[in-house]
């Protein structure tokens, strides 16, 4: 590590004289999410300049909304990735939880809250199963969850078809308890004339909770350790298997939460929905500074990664570009963000 040439003028007594005081900027850049933050600012400024409708508060609110639908899932996916594992079934398990909740309530004509709880049970079970197989067999989670991804995709479509003879779940808006559930999962409110969905607030709250857990609690310490070096963590008494299963179940929990939001927003769920979203979650986490190999990353970074995706997603529409090019621009901008991220992290590490 190189030292910074000029010593601080009056260092506090506890500081070590061999560590030069880093500027606020240098310290910010050393954080995992720094690259993503710079990328997000660049993309925001870019669309701000070329797409006038992007500038209004209302459109930023819709950017935030789209971001939140991905960001809710990107948060636990980032924690899981820091813990050293992948979940490719994350996208379709959102749909599975929502289908389960809606079909159960509809077919048994129960209060929707009963269905909501059954959906939660299923989502947690999927997470548990993924984690349990990974921990017990030692097979890479990439393969295990690739398997569950296809299985869930098949179950979603086949069961929905069998039960309803349609590709979507029936409308549940007439069932008991629907309006209260809708208020909880898919509400909205107005500030200064701008309509904001509650999912944006939930997203921010969950990111804050995840950040607090990661940086301030023992569980956070253990998440970093199981991803960084599982044998070492085990040797000092960290319950590695339980941690990993817990992380998979956290992904299941948020899949349920996201699924409930979608269900109560549209009253119905398309059985083929959610395929491909798992990559968006993973990309958000990686853009946000999570290492693919585990042991490093942040929840705030994943949130910024999701924001980049949300801005591109909406920015293209506001810029009036041909939406057929959307996927291309998403890929291009994400690749750019990753390169920038890597570049900045190297710079920060070199001058740290």
């Amino acid at each position, binding site marked *: 590590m190189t030292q910074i040439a000029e010593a601080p003028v009056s260092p506090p007594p506890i500081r070590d004289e061999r560590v030069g005081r880093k500027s606020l900027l240098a310290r910010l850049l050393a954080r995992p999410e720094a690259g993503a933050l710079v990328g997000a600012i660049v993309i925001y400024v870019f669309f701000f300049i070329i797409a006038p409708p992007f500038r209004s508060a209302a459109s930023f609110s819709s950017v935030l909304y789209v971001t939140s639908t991905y960001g809710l899932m990107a948060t636990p996916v980032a924690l899981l990735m820091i813990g050293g594992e992948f979940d490719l079934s994350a996208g379709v398990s959102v749909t599975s939880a929502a289908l389960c909740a809606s079909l159960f309530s509809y077919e048994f004509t129960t209060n929707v809250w009963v269905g909501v709880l059954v959906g939660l049970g299923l989502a947690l079970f999927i997470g548990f199963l993924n984690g349990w197989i990974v921990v017990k067999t030692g097979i890479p989670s990439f393969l295990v969850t690739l398997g569950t991804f296809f299985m869930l995709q098949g179950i979603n479509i086949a069961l929905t078809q069998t039960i309803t003879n349609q590709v979507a779940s029936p409308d549940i808006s007439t069932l008991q308890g629907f309006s209260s559930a809708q208020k909880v999962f898919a509400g909205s409110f107005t500030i200064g004339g701008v309509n904001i969905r509650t999912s944006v607030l939930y997203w921010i709250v969950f990111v804050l909770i995840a950040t607090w857990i990661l940086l301030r609690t023992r569980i956070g310490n253990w998440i*970093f350790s199981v991803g960084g070096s599982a044998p*070492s963590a085990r040797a000092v008494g*960290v319950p590695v298997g339980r941690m990993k299963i817990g992380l998979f179940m956290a992904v299941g929990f948020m899949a349920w939460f996201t699924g409930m939001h979608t269900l109560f927003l549209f009253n119905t769920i398309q059985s083929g929905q959610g395929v491909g979203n798992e990559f968006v979650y993973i990309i958000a986490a990686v853009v946000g500074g999570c290492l693919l190999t585990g042991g490093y990353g942040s929840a705030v970074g994943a949130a910024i990664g999701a924001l980049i995706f949300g801005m591109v997603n909406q920015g293209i529409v506001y810029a009036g570009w041909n939406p057929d090019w959307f996927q291309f621009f998403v890929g291009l901008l994400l690749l750019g963000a990753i390169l920038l991220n890597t570049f900045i992290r190297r710079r920060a590490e070199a001058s740290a």
Partner: protein
Amino acid sequence: MTTPQNAPVGKHAAQAQQTSQEGTPAGQGNGGVPLVRLVNAGKRYGAVIALSDITMEVGAGEVTCVLGDNGAGKSTLIKIIAGLHQPSSGSYEVDGTPVAFNSPREALERGIATVYQDLAVVPLMPVWRNFFLGNEARKGLRMDIAFMKKTCKDELLAMGIDLRDVDQPIGTLSGGERQCVAISRAVYFGAKVLILDEPTAALGVKQSGVVLKYVIQARERGLGVIFITHNPHHAYPVGDRFLLLNRGRSIGYYEKSQITRDELTGLMAGGAELEQLSHELESAGGAAADIGRVMEADVEELGISHQAGGGSDAASVPTKSGTTRQEGLSHP
């Protein structure tokens, strides 16, 4: 395991022992009762005798070195002392009372801590997080980060490691420094006896020196140290006693006053075996023969020809694959 708040208990106890230690010669620690003692201990795995008839001890403020080549039984010995295995014959005493540990955790509760070669650290995590991993100090739901950072820095300083920044990833430290963090972590969490498994094996000359310095630091803080190594040059300067193993048997157990460095080196090298190896190389001809002649000259210079290999029948020459750490149990 001890909670961090209570953890310095071990440290204070160690310091108390240290003061009572002043001026007494090695071997007299704690009123003459050794912290750890094996008497005629042996270990069989089915028909395989991995270790037989080992007697050794370590007291407070002493370093007992266990020397032996690969396959000599060092790992089995560690596993018995660390609580992974129970001896199948003989006895194992801690503080003068016989014990039968069922797990390393039980040994740890009696203050016997093992620092393995891989050190059990997570390279990407900061030093202080590694130091407290698995034993985090907490304030309600949160971790007490200020306490942990300060304690980590102070504890490392007490071991003579002055870290610039305990927030740096432990992977950025040198191999020797990482070893020392692992040692001071064991000491802080109440270790009275430290088992160091080849702490200098993967290190360069200078780094090895650093680790040896910390072995002495630990001894001066009143800990008993069991130092496993195959390098007599590392063992002799820090050791008070030397147990030499070959093929699962003791080939010598000496106080420092009873043996010189050259004798130790000779015993360790296994004079007879070395001599035989030199003959084999010479008969192979070519470049190997040159090496053989140099080796033979060394054997003569050390004066170990034919005298060593006490308990060993030395019928075959063990392969000297210095990089292999796995102790083979292949010698029946």
